[in-house]
């Protein structure tokens, strides 16, 4: 066989071969896309991580105790290469301020710093060095002139050391200027900042010593002279981070009563080495290496990560244990592994899709070979062997395959370009580009593999064609085709059964029980969860058998279709043959006559549609699931974290912020109970939460019927700053004992339940405010209260609490001389507050009987019903109240009513009791709570571990009391279980490990009561619990810049996390995104191949069909009949494909779903419009081809057509 023949053939068939070449290139490009796509997605993720990182985090810091030498520099260059683009070098003396003693026998921690003293002007140093009275942190910056501006004086210089005495050639003046030889004063020069100068009272020329004086009288000190006052050019320059001692110094607490001002100064680096290094306790040589993150990409991220580790090790060795650290390392580590992990399954999936494409090619090339049948017959009749004919085909397609292999990687880049704009990730990329990515070697290898597969699959049809070429000579081709070889040993059934076997294996392994298999099949979300939670187990995420199940099933179903299609058409033919019309039966007869090819066309359409449907389904599911997952991790569309002590967000109208539809306040606290078991406590307002996040409404439904917390006491106006009451005190004076001094303790709570104590007395200036736990006994010996008359007691309200305050209890803290016990009677009237302008607001004047006032039984305002009464209760007993009229003189005209309190003061446990009256206060019932399965398990009993054995987990209706350590203190926490959930909750950490899912135990409770409970026990003016997270619902998902600005202006906001950012990350997870992306590209390529295949079919059969149509027209058919015939035929082709393909695709997506671990446990979703668009695009493509064919056939006259047929 000569190459000449082959090339001439190719030249003659250039149109056909061009189309075939296009098909081959599409296939090689597709297979090469997988690794490129994974890297591209990873690349975007890396870029996103690097671009959003704080530039300072990306620097690499080397801290060494010895100077960084040339060798170390070489190591840095070798390891980091182009990543390192600059360095800030500076030297810093070791400095640790002393830790002040706690005052309870703790001596504190000694400092590690160089100390000394400022020389007093006129003092003679030769008289000996006085004891050090201040300490310093010396610095030396390499580029000091670029970092600071000189305010006064000049920058420091390196002066000669005593051993540098070579004065040769220098004049006396020069020697004096350089302090050489006899002019050497042993000094080194330094600069300080204005703030240091002012605080330490230094000026130009100030001198000080630093170093150590030993007991034997010797010393190791250096003398420093201030030669300049400098200020930083850019105070926010990151180099000052960690070096604030130079800029500002620090006030150091030496002991309980003494503080000291320590400060820093900067030297010339060489001078530091000469003079300072020998006298300080230690020196750190610091390199801040600037990095160029642009050089990092998905291909070299792993290499740079390894280089960083190597750098750490080598510098550690070369520089005697030098430390190297950077925020860059965690950003770039792990990408290599993620790429590798994703690559295997993706290549497998691409391979599966590749089979569909190769089948397209086989069908297409079979058509071409059918067209070339005459030529092959001719060669065959001249003695061309089957091998020679196959060789002819092989060499032809080898050239195509070779070109395809070369073009494939480049074409894959075009696919990628397409994906950036139109693929399922276009939205997630949010305008980001895949960039100028280097094509990975794997892509080239896969392109070669695809090229080889194309050559093989394009050559294989040559064998039957060569065999058939002889049949053609024998005029036997019109005989019915024999059954395909695989039908004889039921390959289709074998594959389907094997596929089902693998599916069952995957699902069954989930729990190992048949009943669970059914449960998983009908509830794929559980299966998804299982597969995701057990990545390394058989049947888990990384099990390739799961993908194999799909490949086997799909292939088996395809073959089964080929088996049944002829029967199906035969059946349809029998039905249609009874009709009188000719078009329908003739169309079916045409298909029935050549069922194999029609079946293949339909099968390919089915495959194409399956890919498309699966791609659309997975993309839609991923989008919905990814967003759900992102929301679940973040907590709503955005989570604003707040430090409640730094700002009050009560009045922030979150839903007026840009793009915010709803918001929910959340308290999130980590607590421990039973010694060490930790859990997360989530406090929400159920109604508010359910309204803002309807998706989670069910998960807090159990809390929604719970009545709101009844707040105790009387609300004080927000503008009140003083509380007053009129008191009429019974006279008890005797000769030995003075009149009682009436003091009323008013117990307040603020808006978040933090308790405050306010003591009302006649002298408002002496009142004591503060949290209950922090008050001391009232001043001894308050003046007696004038008896038998109305006097005003008053006190100032605390200023640090959250408004409004509520007055819930008043305690009679009266004294009578030195008596430990006495009984007394007072009348109270006219409770009122006074604002800063002196305007009074009445609170209670007892015009009617005050129903809510009663003798106190609770020490705390939110006493839990589960907390037993204890000794503290006895401190508040002993008061009787009565609503009276006209018992005493009216406090004002027409006011004869008052509250009479008769009380007895005693001493209990060494303290005077405080008979109290409480106002509108009720105990709190056990808090309704929804708990996680883990919580139910951990806190099933009151013991730990094995102590709980045999005790069933908590369930709905269970009640439990725990003393929960919430950090600042312990809260007695009684709860009643109203729900148990195993579905997790937003922001609750779930970690997937090889051993399974580790989920934090959590409990969801109403916010207000929980906050009050915690604050009554642990709250204080500067530390209390309140909403520390606000979850926002952004319908548009993406936060606007305006929203970010608005949030930034809210006081107390520490950080804001957006689900949109996380959503982008999820969408860019290599494996799931590549699965959806490749299916999408696979669909597009397959659609193109389908159209090419169909076009070939039209071309090949055109002559035969045109002759047939010519005959039909000569018998009286018109062109409309022919058009209808073609339409019927193609309806038979497309309709089953549309139905079966879509269903099969949905099934494929259903089976693939478990691999999309981050799909947020979503069940399969479709966007109907997208599916319809896909079907329309396919039908449209076919319609265009069909119309072109029909138009061409119509344009021919009968004569022309018949002659054409004869040829």
């Amino acid at each position: 066989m000569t190459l000449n023949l082959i090339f001439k053939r190719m030249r003659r068939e250039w149109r056909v071969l061009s189309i075939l070449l296009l098909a081959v290139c599409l296939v090689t490009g597709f297979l090469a896309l997988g690794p490129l796509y994974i890297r591209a997605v990873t690349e975007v993720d890396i870029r996103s991580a690097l671009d959003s990182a704080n530039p300072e985090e990306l620097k690499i810091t080397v801290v060494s105790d010895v100077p960084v030498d040339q060798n170390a520099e070489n190591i840095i260059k070798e390891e980091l290469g182009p990543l390192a683009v600059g360095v800030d070098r500076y030297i810093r003396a070791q400095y640790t301020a002393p830790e002040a003693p706690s005052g309870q026998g703790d001596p504190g921690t000694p400092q590690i710093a160089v100390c000394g003293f400022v020389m007093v002007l006129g003092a003679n140093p030769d008289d000996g060095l006085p004891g050090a009275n201040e300490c310093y942190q010396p610095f030396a910056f390499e580029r000091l002139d670029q970092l600071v501006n000189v305010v006064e004086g000049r920058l420091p210089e390196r002066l000669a050391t005593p051993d540098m005495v070579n004065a040769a050639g220098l004049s006396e003046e020069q020697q004096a200027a350089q302090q050489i030889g006899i002019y050497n004063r042993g000094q080194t020069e330094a600069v300080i900042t204005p703030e240091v100068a002012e605080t330490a009272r230094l000026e130009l020329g100030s001198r000080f010593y630093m170093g150590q004086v030993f007991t034997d009288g010797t010393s190791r000190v250096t003398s420093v002279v201030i030669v300049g006052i400098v200020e930083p050019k850019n105070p926010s320059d990151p180099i000052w981070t960690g070096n604030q001692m130079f800029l500002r110094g620090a006030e150091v607490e030496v002991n309980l009563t003494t503080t000291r001002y320590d400060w820093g100064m900067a030297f010339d680096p060489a001078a530091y080495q000469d003079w300072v290094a020998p006298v300080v306790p230690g020196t750190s040589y610091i390199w801040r290496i600037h990095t160029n993150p642009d050089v990092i990409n998905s291909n070299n991220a792993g290499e740079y990560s390894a280089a960083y580790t190597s750098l750490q090790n080598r510098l550690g060795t070369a520089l005697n244990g030098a430390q190297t650290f950077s925020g860059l390392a965690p950003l770039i580590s792990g990408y290599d592994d993620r790429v590798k992990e994703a690559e295997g399954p993706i290549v497998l999936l691409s391979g599966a899709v590749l089979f569909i494409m190769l089948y397209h090619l086989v069908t297409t090339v079979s058509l071409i070979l059918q067209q070339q049948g005459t030529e092959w017959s001719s060669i065959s009749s001249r003695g061309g062997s089957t091998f020679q004919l196959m060789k002819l085909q092989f060499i032809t397609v080898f050239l195509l395959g070779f070109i395809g292999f070369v073009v494939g990687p480049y074409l894959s880049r075009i696919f990628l370009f397409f994906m950036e704009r139109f693929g399922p990730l276009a939205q997630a990329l949010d305008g980001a580009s895949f960039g100028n990515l280097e094509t990975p070697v794997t892509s080239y290898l896969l392109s070669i593999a695809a090229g080889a597969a194309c050559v093989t699959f394009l050559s294989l049809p040559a064998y039957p064609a060569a065999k058939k070429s002889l049949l053609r000579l024998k005029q036997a081709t019109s005989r019915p085709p024999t059954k395909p070889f695989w039908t004889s040993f039921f390959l289709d059934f074998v594959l389907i059964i094997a596929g089902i076997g693998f599916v069952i294996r995957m699902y069954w392994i989930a729990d190992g029980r048949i009943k669970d298999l059914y449960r998983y099949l009908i509830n794929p979300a559980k299966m998804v969860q299982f597969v995701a939670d057990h990545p390394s187990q058989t049947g888990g995420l990384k099990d390739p058998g799961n993908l194999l199940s799909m490949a086997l099933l799909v292939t088996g179903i395809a073959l089964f279709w080929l088996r049944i299609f002829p029967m199906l058409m035969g059946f349809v033919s029998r039905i249609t043959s009874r009709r009188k019309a000719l078009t329908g039966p003739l169309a079916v007869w045409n298909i029935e006559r050549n069922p194999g090819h029609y079946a293949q066309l339909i099968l390919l359409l089915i495959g194409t549609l399956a890919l498309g449907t699966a791609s659309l389904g997975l993309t839609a599911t991923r989008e919905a699931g990814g967003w759900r997952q992102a929301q679940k991790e973040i907590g709503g569309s955005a989570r604003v974290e707040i430090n409640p002590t730094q700002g009050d967000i009560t009045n922030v109208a979150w839903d007026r912020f840009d793009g915010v539809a709803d918001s929910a306040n959340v308290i999130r606290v980590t607590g421990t109970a039973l010694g060490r078991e930790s859990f997360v406590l989530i406090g929400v307002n159920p109604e508010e939460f359910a309204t803002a996040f309807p998706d989670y409404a069910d998960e807090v439904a159990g809390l929604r019927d719970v009545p709101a917390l009844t707040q105790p006491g009387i609300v004080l106006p927000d503008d009140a700053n003083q509380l007053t009451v009129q008191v009429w005190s019974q006279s008890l004076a005797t000769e030995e004992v003075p009149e009682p001094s009436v003091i009323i303790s008013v117990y307040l709570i603020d808006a978040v339940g933090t308790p405050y104590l306010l003591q009302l007395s006649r002298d408002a200036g002496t009142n004591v405010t503060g949290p209950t736990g922090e008050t001391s006994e009232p001043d001894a010996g308050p003046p007696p209260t004038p008896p038998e008359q109305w006097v005003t007691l008053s006190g100032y309200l605390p200023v640090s609490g959250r408004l409004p305050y509520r007055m819930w209890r008043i305690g009679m803290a009266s004294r009578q001389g030195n008596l430990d016990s006495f009984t007394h009677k007072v009348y109270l009237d006219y409770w009122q507050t006074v604002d800063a302008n002196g305007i009074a607001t009445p609170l209670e004047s007892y015009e009617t009987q005050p129903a809510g006032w009663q003798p106190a039984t609770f020490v705390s305002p939110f006493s839990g019903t589960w907390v037993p009464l204890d000794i503290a209760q006895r401190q508040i007993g002993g008061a009787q109240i009565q609503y009276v009229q006209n018992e005493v003189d009216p406090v004002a005209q027409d006011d004869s009513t008052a509250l009479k309190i008769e009380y007895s003061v005693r001493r209990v446990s060494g303290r005077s009791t405080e008979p109290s009256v409480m106002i509108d206060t009720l105990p709190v019932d056990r808090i309704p709570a929804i708990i996680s399965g883990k919580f139910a398990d951990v806190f099933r009993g009151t013991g730990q571990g094995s102590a709980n054995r045999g005790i069933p987990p908590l369930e709905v209706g269970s009640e439990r009391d725990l003393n929960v350590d919430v950090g600042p203190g312990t809260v007695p926490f009684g709860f009643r279980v109203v729900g148990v959930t195993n579905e997790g909750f937003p922001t609750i950490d779930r970690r997937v490990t090889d051993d399974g899912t580790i989920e934090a135990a959590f409990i969801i409770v109403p916010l207000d009561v929980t906050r009050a409970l915690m604050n009554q026990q642990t709250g204080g003016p500067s530390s209390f619990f309140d909403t520390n997270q606000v979850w926002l619902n952004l319908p548009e998902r993406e936060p606007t810049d305006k929203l970010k600005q608005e949030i930034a202006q809210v006081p107390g906001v520490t950080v804001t996390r957006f689900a949109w950012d996380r959503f982008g990350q999820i969408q860019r997870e290599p494996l799931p995104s590549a699965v959806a992306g490749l299916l999408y590209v696979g669909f597009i390529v397959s659609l193109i191949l389908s159209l090419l295949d169909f076009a070939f079919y039209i071309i090949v059969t055109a002559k035969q069909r045109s002759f047939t149509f010519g005959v039909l027209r000569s018998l009286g058919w018109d062109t409309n009949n022919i058009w209808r015939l073609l339409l019927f035929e193609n309806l038979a082709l497309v309709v089953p494909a549309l139905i079966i393909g879509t269903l099969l695709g949905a099934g494929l997506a259903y089976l693939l779903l478990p691999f999309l671990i981050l799909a947020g446990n979503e069940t399969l979703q479709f966007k109907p419009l997208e599916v319809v668009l896909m079907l329309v695009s396919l039908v449209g493509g076919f319609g265009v081809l069909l119309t072109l064919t029909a138009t061409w056939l119509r344009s021919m006259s009968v004569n022309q057509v018949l002659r054409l047929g004869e040829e």
Partner: protein
Amino acid sequence: MRPYIKCDDLVKIYKIADLEVVALRGLDLEVDKGEMLALVGASGSGKSTLMNILGALDTPTTGQVWVGDYNLLEMSRPQQTLYRRTQVGFVWQQTARNLLPYLTARENVELPMALAKVGRRERHKRAQELLEMVGLGERLNHRPDRLSGGEQQRVAIAVAMANRPGLLLADEPTGEVDTEAAGIIFNTMHTLKDEYGVTIIIVTHDVSVANRVDRVIGMRDGRTVTEILRRRDGDVLVSDEEYAILDRAGRLQLPEAYIETLSLEDRVRLKLREDHIGVYAQHHSEETDEEEETTVGA
């Protein structure tokens, strides 16, 4: 001496779906080396099947068939390919089957030689020689679309002769050309027969072609039924006689015309006479026979 082609009781049965079609029913045929004969017969008489078998495109169901030293019944597929490549040449009625449209006349002729791995120089030489012999020495580099139908068929003959086969099978070679071209084609084949001693079998309906060969075998229902033998002295026809074929089993097919004339049907009576065998219709009486005998005898 064994004839070049010897077919002995050839039977070929095709199976189409569940239906068996008997294409050849115990055909016997002997052809000598260098002979040129024509096969004629109605459609479905088995001509093409016989051609396919002789060309090793098909194998008989039973019987024996030898072409030269090749027992076509016992050949493996590679042997069949080799046989087609070296021992037999085909000329088909449709020119599209004979020639590859994208090759020149010379390249078409060289193709079978290339398949047989003949050296390039030898291919060139032989192709030129053959094309000159068929009268197309001036049109070596013309592609088929620039040749007339007759010229294409002559190129096809050159192609068929490329590997010097011993047997040339031509299926209606003049079917698509005019009379003049047909004459040229026939003369070309004659020349080749004389030059190379090739045995030529022509399947034809063309009476003029049948008249140009010395042996014409008529086929019907899968058997050879008649044979016309002509003797010539130079270009002058000396004798032209048609014979019925008596096969090895003694079977004889009567010409249709005889049967119709004598209204023979179902059964006939045979009478052995002194120098011939009489065939009589069933209704023919004994007396008539006697009379005829007398007449004959007289």
